[in-house]
């Protein structure tokens, strides 16, 4: 299943698709996992509720299991093949950003807290962000305008006036390119980055080069934090209440072990093991707590940098011929800095443009000029 069509478009409203991480009452939401095959939520996600007022939700695009995979290619395919304006989905581990960079789509990962996470199958709550993938910046901006806003059902949701302000246009004049991140790219990716820089310059932007400093630590720190949160979030799938239950079990332990073993794929199992490891009493201080410190340092790095520039250019991945079997952890070097800080990112012209908190509108306006 790459794309489930719930109904044919009626063309009375624009059509959009959700990804399989966003819960709705009217159709199953499975997170791409055998564990949740056929699972239908008792409630709608806030984003689904908001979108259904303005759009016709045609269905859900498939995701890699719990969106941990390298790419979100079903979303890009759906945009190409179907008459839909956008795909709204969870940016958990950078898959949407990599895919948008490789397929020439626009993807906006909004500032953490401006779009409700209520009704999202949780992966790593401190970084989970609902984003929008579309063919152009205008469409992405329009759909983001519908889903952004305060939600009382999400305790980390920002106040309404703050959410609204994030959509205001602004200007991007000075852009930092982080040296450590533009080295060691494939030739094609280097060419993509160079072309993006030229496009920015053509719009009158000033480009400066900066050192990455602590930024290279974001990858490991985010792997620690996100695996820990992931491990915690998927513990609820235990075969007792809903989802898959292994047949013929004789004890509660057997229900737990077999239900989970028989459904979860290897990426999920690795993340669970790693997450448990970093949270164990012996490792908490030297791994988890240290990762929290690194997160603060990465935030401080950006705070300082954004006193000098309006945006930061980072590649979305190291090369253009990524395959689903390659190591996501290595590629997360490029996406982790925004995941761990919750900063807004727009992928356009094949690279990531990071902005300061609430610069979503400015980044979208800028990326429109690059098209």
């Amino acid at each position, binding site marked *: 299943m790459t794309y489930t069509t719930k109904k044919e478009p009626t063309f009375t409203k624009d059509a959009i698709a959700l990804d399989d991480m966003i819960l709705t009452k009217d159709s199953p939401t499975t997170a791409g996992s055998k564990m949740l095959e056929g699972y239908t939520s008792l409630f709608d996600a806030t984003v689904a509720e908001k979108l259904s007022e303005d759009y016709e939700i045609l269905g859900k695009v498939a995701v890699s299991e719990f969106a941990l995979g390298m790419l979100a290619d079903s979303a890009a395919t759906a945009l190409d093949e179907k008459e839909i304006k956008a795909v709204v989905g969870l940016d958990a581990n950078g898959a949407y950003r990599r895919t948008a960079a490789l397929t020439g789509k626009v993807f906006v990962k909004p500032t953490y807290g401006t779009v409700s996470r209520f009704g999202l199958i949780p992966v790593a*709550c401190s970084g989970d962000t609902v984003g929008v993938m579309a063919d152009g910046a205008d469409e992405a901006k329009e759909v983001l305008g519908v889903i952004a806003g305060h939600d009382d059902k999400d*305790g980390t949701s920002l106040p309404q006036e703050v959410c609204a302000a994030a959509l205001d246009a602004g200007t991007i004049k000075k852009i930092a390119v982080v040296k450590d991140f533009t080295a060691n790219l494939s030739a094609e990716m280097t060419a993509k980055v160079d072309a993006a820089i030229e496009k920015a310059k053509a719009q009158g932007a000033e480009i400066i080069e900066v050192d990455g400093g602590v930024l290279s630590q974001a990858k490991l720190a985010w792997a620690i934090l996100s695996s820990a949160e992931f491990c915690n979030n998927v513990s609820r799938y235990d075969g*007792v209440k809903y989802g898959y239950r292994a047949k013929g079990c004789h004890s509660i332990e057997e229900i737990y072990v077999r239900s989970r073993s028989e459904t979860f794929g290897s990426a999920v199992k690795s993340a669970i093991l790693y997450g448990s490891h970093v949270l*164990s009493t012996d490792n908490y201080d030297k791994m988890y707590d240290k990762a929290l410190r690194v997160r603060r340092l990465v935030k401080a790095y950006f705070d300082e940098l954004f006193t000098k520039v309006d945006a930061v250019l980072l590649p979305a991945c190291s090369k253009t011929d990524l395959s689903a079997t390659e190591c996501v952890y290595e590629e997360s070097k490029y996406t982790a800095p925004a995941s761990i800080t919750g900063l807004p990112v727009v992928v356009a012209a094949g690279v990531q443009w990071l902005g300061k908190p609430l610069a979503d509108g400015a980044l979208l306006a800028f990326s429109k000029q690059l098209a």
Partner: protein
Amino acid sequence: MEYEVVIGLEVHCELATNSKIFCACSAKYGAEANEHVCPACCGMPGMLPIVNKRVVDLGMTAGMMLNCHINRKTTFDKKNYYYPDLPAAYQTTQLFAPICVNGRVDIETSKGKKSVRIKQIHMEEDAGKLVHDDWRDLTMVDYNRTSVPLVEIVSQPDLSSAEEVVAYLERLRSLLRFAKVSDCRWEQGSMRCDVNLSVREKGSDKLGVRTEMKNMNSLAAITRAIEYETARHIDAIVNKTEELVQETRRWDDEKGKSFAMRTKETAGDYRYFPDPNVMPVVIDDTWYNRIKDSLPEFPEVKKARYMDELGLGDFDATSLVESRAFCDVFEAAYAECGLAKDAANWILKDCANLLNRNQMTADMLSIDGRALGKLIRLVADEKVGRANAKFILAEIFAGATDPEKIAVEKGFIVSNDTSLIEKVVVDIVAADPKSVADYKGGKEKAFMALFGKCMRELKGNCNPQVLRELLLKEIDKA
């Protein structure tokens, strides 16, 4: 060699909130299984926790009653473990910045007064309940209790006997009930206790090997368990009957023995970490002062005031301060009628009777204290007879607020018209010459019979003193 026992307690109390800690479900006890549940407290994906502010109010109140420092910025953490009564496979609790730290509870035992230090109080959610059906060989889960808010009160290992433990628990219960933090019902599981115990040579400053007995739910069982464990530890140390290990043990009150459940080595790792979905709760001065100002007088302060200022006796004062509800009704009634002794009597005798008859406890008295005060005033002013007043009290108990209105409607207002009483007295005396003769012959009881007949005829609406005088006069004439 002399030995001493060192005990620390972890006490769980369910908070007296209407709704659960992170969702809007009812937190009330006693519903049908899985009646008070929603996707959030059933651990379904996609729900996010929203902190119930009332829980923080009560957490703070508990801390202030126990002389704690209140952390003005308090955070929630996740504790991971698998058990079918824990639907999300984690419990949201407080590890890194609990709401209260460093408190003190003063107790008194046969050995004298003592302060027990409180290490911390943290807020957390309760787990559900497993219901075993042996007949059908089934285990079912009831999630009503899931996410019901709790405070866990952790003492320092300052207790050194079962008697002290009981005194401490009773004191804790009294303070928390008084401040309406929790109803602290052992029998309903809204108060539970984990006992951490070790034994060491008397005077040593090194602690012995500690064992923990979880989920104890009666003072008698706790006492027996402590005595048993103390003896077991001493026996192990002195007679080398077994090697003590740090472990969790289950107390079987029927067998009078404790059994090993799990050792430190086999215990799961709870993998605590800060909950990213709950923002830190920041308690500003306004919030802090609102709670501070709402604290009740401590029971012993109230008792002293009732005795010194209102002139109550020790027994009445002690009985009243056993229940905050009694105190509240008493104070409202006293403010209305100004008659402390009468108000205490009406509450401790008549209201207590009504509670008993309705199988309610002292804490459940929820009548309008001002209405009771008005009723006491009516009786004191001899406007309503005592028997009729009891009838009116039953109405107040059922929710009525205006005793005078009831008295008028029911015709209970005592007549000042002596001619009516005289008429009744004349009739009764004329109709019962035998009793009159008996009384004159020295039978006191005969007078009471005549008196009672008159009272009945008057439906209780007369001043007994006036009736008595008129009746004596009439008998004399006869």
